[in-house]
């Protein structure tokens, strides 16, 4: 039976939006925590840490996110865990996001002038104290615009979760399209929903960037 596209279908899509947003937030938090670790390893004074972080970034930036999703999805079953779409997507998106955040934040940490390191060293700060009290607080300002910019990518890429059967916005769209047979309308509306989240984020990142450049 073919259904008409009405308010019910629209609300159903809007409801699925919360999974997309939830997934984006989880990926942002997970990717942020691991990404910070990668960035710190990447600028570490100890070379093997730097190599490790570089390899991690190179590896995950050169792997399709879809492959990562499949590997985690089928890999979970191999190590005896249940093949659960949500955990698979979370792990895959965390790996993916942390590689990009690691690279973005490495740049931000290195953009803090060398004199800040020298000054704080002269004051007798240890490496970790320098990082925590002097360098990281200053790099946050540099890192914010590109971080917000990358969040746009993250929100869009949660759509790949639909391919392994996670019920977020794109999955819901396929569902609604299958019962209404109105692809242009359904995908148009869903595209607009993604746009409504991504475009403000993009504008915010651009404003932050202009503000940052003006302040300098």
């Amino acid at each position: 039976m073919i259904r008409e596209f009405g308010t019910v279908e629209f609300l159903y899509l809007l409801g699925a939006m919360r999974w997309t947003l939830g997934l984006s937030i989880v990926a942002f938090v997970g990717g942020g925590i691991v990404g910070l670790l990668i960035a710190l390893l990447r600028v570490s004074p100890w070379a093997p840490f730097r190599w490790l972080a570089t390899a991690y970034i190179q590896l995950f930036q050169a792997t399709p996110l879809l492959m990562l999703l499949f590997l985690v999805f089928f890999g979970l079953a191999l190590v005896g865990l249940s093949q659960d779409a949500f955990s698979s997507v979370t792990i895959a998106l965390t790996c993916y996001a942390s590689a990009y955040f690691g690279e973005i934040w490495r740049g931000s940490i290195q953009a803090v002038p060398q004199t800040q390191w020298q000054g704080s060293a002269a004051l007798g700060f240890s490496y970790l104290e320098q990082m925590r009290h002097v360098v990281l607080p200053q790099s946050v300002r540099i890192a914010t615009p590109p971080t917000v910019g990358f969040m746009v990518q993250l929100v869009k890429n949660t759509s790949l979760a639909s391919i392994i059967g996670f019920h977020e916005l794109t999955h819901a769209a396929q569902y609604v399209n299958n019962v209404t047979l109105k692809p242009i309308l359904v995908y148009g509306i869903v595209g607009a929903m993604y746009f409504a989240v991504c475009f403000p984020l993009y504008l915010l990142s651009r404003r932050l960037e202009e503000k940052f450049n003006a302040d300098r």
Partner: protein
Amino acid sequence: MDYTFQFGSVWAAMPRLIEGAKLTITLSVATIGIGLLIGILCALARTSHRAWLRRPAAVYVEAIRNTPFLIQLFMIYFGLPSLGVRLEPVQAALVGMSINCGAYATEIVRAGIDAVPRGQLEAARAMGFPVPSIVRHVILFPALRAVFPALASQFILVMLGSAVVSTVSVEELTGVAHLIETENFRPFEVYLVVTAMYLAIAFTFKVVFAAVDRFYFQARGRA
């Protein structure tokens, strides 16, 4: 973990995987060509002083950059037939990927054009250069040279993103991998090998782009 890895059936399917990889590379190279062309034209439109050229280009770029590629692909593959345009999966993939790549290329090329000093443009005009050669030699070449590294990373993302077109049944690398996995029930092994193949393609692309940058763009002295 009491799982024994069995790669035998994956090696047996290698010729098909290589065919898939060839399609992935063909699609990516074609997309890069068309996308760069769209990018150059739209970047010129976006930096134009005519609003009727600037506005549509801006709408195109923002609409594409702020929606998922998967939705764009579904729009083309499932949506266009209801308007009477029926595309084969490979054609739909090429159209979708090119439109997507074009929007990102536009933004990058535009940044390059913005970086060209105004004085050079005025000098070229004062010396009576014809407009087409100003566009080609004074605007586009320096602009592309300035942003080529950014374009190269975007092109690698295009290649990696092509995995997604397997969802509309294109038999590129991921599509073939999916078929093989449903035959031999060894998904993890198949995707592990395919991931390694993607890594190899990505690093090859990187090396090629670095060579293009060095021997084409950088070899022609800076102004």
